Structures are given as C-alpha cells and as structure tokens.
C-alpha cells in the first residue's frame, strides 16, 4: 500500500468542512508510514495506530481501569455474573443474524433457542439457563461474516477505546449495531439508556481483562506488535474452522 492509498476523499466546499477535511487529512498523513516493516505487516497506519493505543492505555490507566476495579470491588461476583449474562444474551440476535449469513442454520437455531430460553426463563438473560440445559453457545460477528465470504481483512487499525481491529472488522462493528436489540428500542437507542448499556459492557469486559493488562505489560517485548499479532492470529483462527495445522512455520 502506498502513501497515496492513505489519502481521504476530497471534502465539500464549505469553509467548516474544508477545515475539517484538512484536519482529517493532516492526521491521516501524519499517521501513515512508508516503513517497509509496517507495510509488510499490512499496517500502513502504524504511527497513528501506536498513538491511538497509547491514548487507549492512558485512558485505561486514568479512568477505565480504576472504574472497572471499583465495579469489581463494589459489586459481588454473582451480581457481575448476572450483568455479564444479560449483556451476552442481549447480543444473541447479532450472533443469530451472522450465523444465518454464514450458512450455519443449525448453530443459528441453537442461538435462537438460547436467546428465547434465557430471556423468558432466565429473566431477561440474567440467569444463563441455556448453559444449564447444555445448549451450546456460539459467538460470531459481521467481520467474520465478511471474512467467510472472502473479504480480506485490510490494513490493521487501532480504534479509540475499542482497541485492535482492521478495515473489515471495523465495518463489521458498525453493521452489527443494527440487529442488536438496543437499536430497535427507540427509548433505549435515542436516550441515555444506550450509554448505560455501553458503559456496563466496557466495565464488564475490563474486569475480565485485568490480569491480561498486567501480564501484557510485563511479558510483551513490544506491546503494540504483541497486541497486533494476537488479534490477527485469533481472527484468522476463527475463520479457519477445524485446524489441520498444515500452514505452521518451520523451526529450522
């Protein structure tokens, strides 16, 4: 990918929009690189991505981490588990839609069953009754759906607050908001309720990652590259299905 590939489309001709376009163009150009290492790793935005990761880590140290620890210490484990179950259940329509698009009707049927059972019997999903009934839980998203249909991942991206991604998966994130129940409830989508759901999700995930943040800090030689490598390998493995390991590198 050349530097030209990093340029945004031209802005419209009002002063404010021209100014905004100029700002965005400047940011993107500053964030591009011609470093062969970065281009080989399909990471042409490495300078911008590194800056975004630094911002994310600073935000975590200053706000998110302390908030998550307060949440962990203030809410009993059973309560946190119930919230986690509720949020997971809320995402099941997204999983269902993507399983259908990926041509996996059996797993989609199981997902629908889980959603129905947990919503009704599990009191809105707070109790994971479906797992007690040994109904398998599946997880997928529109980024994987695009990958399933042959869309390449594109350049690596680090999103503000959201973390590692790529062009394909970032697009997937945007699309996945539509089948999510919070989009279909007007009061929730247009009011403060949606931000409460998002904040709870952030805290829930961050508590789970407490040990990981600590270990990454100690074990990574280059935390940025480690996170990029982990993200890419994980996403590739989710797309590949049953592994036969014919693509592993030689050690000699």
């Amino acid at each position, binding site marked *: 990918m050349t530097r030209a590939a990093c340029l945004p489309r031209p802005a419209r001709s009002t002063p404010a929009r021209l100014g905004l376009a100029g700002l965005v163009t400047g940011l993107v150009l500053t964030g591009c690189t011609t*470093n*062969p*290492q970065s281009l080989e*790793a399909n990471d042409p935005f490495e300078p911008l991505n590194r800056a975004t990761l630094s911002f994310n880590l600073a935000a975590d140290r200053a706000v998110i981490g302390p908030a998550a620890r307060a949440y962990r210490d203030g809410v009993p484990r059973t309560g946190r588990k119930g919230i986690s179950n509720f949020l997971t259940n809320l995402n099941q329509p997204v999983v269902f839609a993507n399983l259908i698009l990926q041509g996996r009707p059996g797993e989609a049927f199981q997902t629908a069953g889980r959603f129905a059972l947990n919503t009704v019997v599990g009191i809105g999903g707070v109790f994971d009754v479906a797992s007690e009934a040994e109904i398998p839980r599946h*997880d997928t*998203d529109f980024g994987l759906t695009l990958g399933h249909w042959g869309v390449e991942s594109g350049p690596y991206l680090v999103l503000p607050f959201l*973390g*590692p991604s790529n062009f394909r998966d970032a697009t997937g994130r945007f699309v996945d908001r539509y089948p999510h129940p919070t989009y279909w409830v007007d009061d929730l989508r247009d009011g403060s309720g949606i931000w409460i759901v998002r904040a709870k999700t952030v805290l829930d*995930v961050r508590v*789970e*990652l407490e*040990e*990981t943040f600590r*270990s*990454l800090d*100690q*074990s*990574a*030689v*280059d935390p940025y*590259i*480690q996170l*990029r*490598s*982990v*993200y890419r*390998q*994980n*996403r*590739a*493995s*989710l797309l590949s299905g049953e*592994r*036969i*390991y*014919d693509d*592993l*590198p030689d*050690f*000699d």
Partner: protein
Amino acid sequence: MLNRLLAALPAPALFLSLVFFALSPAAEASDARAAEAFVEREAQRVIDALQAWREGEVDMDTLRRDFRDRVDDLADVERITGFVLGRYRRGADPQALEEFSEVFREFAIQVYERELGHYAGQTLSVTGSVTRNSGDYVVRSVVRGGNGEPDVPVNWRVLVRDNEMKVVDAEVMGVWLAQTQREQITGIIGNARGDISAATRVLRERIERNNSR
C-alpha cells in the same frame, strides 16, 4: 471472542508451555502417541510441582530455582532463538547471536517465574494430536482452572531432533506464542536496519524494568 482470548493470555498455557521447556526431560521420539504421552507426563510433573508448592512442601524460591535450573538443560534454546529471529538469523554475527540468546532466555524465565504462583490448581488433559510430518506433532489439550472458569483449549507443537522430543510452541485460542514473539523481535530488528543488538537492548531494558517492580 478476543476478550476471552486476551483474558486467557498469558495463562495457563502461556505459562505452562515455558515451564514445559524447563521441567521436561528429553523423551525418545516415536510417533504421535508418544508426543501425547510426553505432553501428558510433563504436564503432570508441572501440576505436581505447583501442587507441592501450594501445599507448602516447597517454597516459591525452590520452585523458581528448579524451574530456572532446568531451562538451560532441557529447553531447545537454539531452535527457539533461531525461530524468533526469523530472517535475521541468517548471516548474524555469532557474538550478537549468543548475546541475544542469553538475554532472551533470561527475559522469558523472568516473565514466567513471576507467573508461577498464579497457576497452581490448574489441570491439563490431552485430547488428541495431529501429525504434520515425521517428528512434528501438534498435541491437543484442554486446561481447566476450576472455580467456574471456562476450559481453555491449548495445543502444543512438539518437535523431535536427535531422537529427543521437546515442546517448541504453544497455541491458545489460535495464537501461537513463539510466532507472537517472533513478530515482536523481528519488528524491533527490522526498524534497526537488521541490527540484532537492538532487540537485545530492548530485552535488557524490559528485564531491568521488571526487576525494579
């Protein structure tokens, strides 16, 4: 999904893979079942060592010392070091290579020494294997932490050389640890125009920073 992966790293498998290097003696090569038996046997030794510590039969210093002493004798350091250097291993200055090898091993030992106590109580069950080539196996297993924690699938790359069997890499939720290390190390060396000592310097800084905590 990435959240589950990140929550599982670096343990238990990340830790257990390196401890396997340290605590596993050489095993005679034969076939995939031998590789499975090798992983199962060595996993049990690790679990037993951690359990002995947990029950107070040995202290942490003894556990760490035992771990450190065995790494030099039993880990295939040359092979792993060559792997993480990638293309920069070819034509590298022998002295720079030796220096990097020593520092890389010290860094890895230090990281996993710190994690030792967190993984007492884990159990590992071998569930099968894949034969890639003669002397090249991927052993599948599941690590269980108990306490309602989800099971973590972990796969072990077992290679045979000179009739000895050793683990050279481990995969947790699709992520191969040595490959992740290689990307980091080659990234640093590449940005330094192929200078291996740049990676050695970074590793030393990391060791010093971790020691100061």
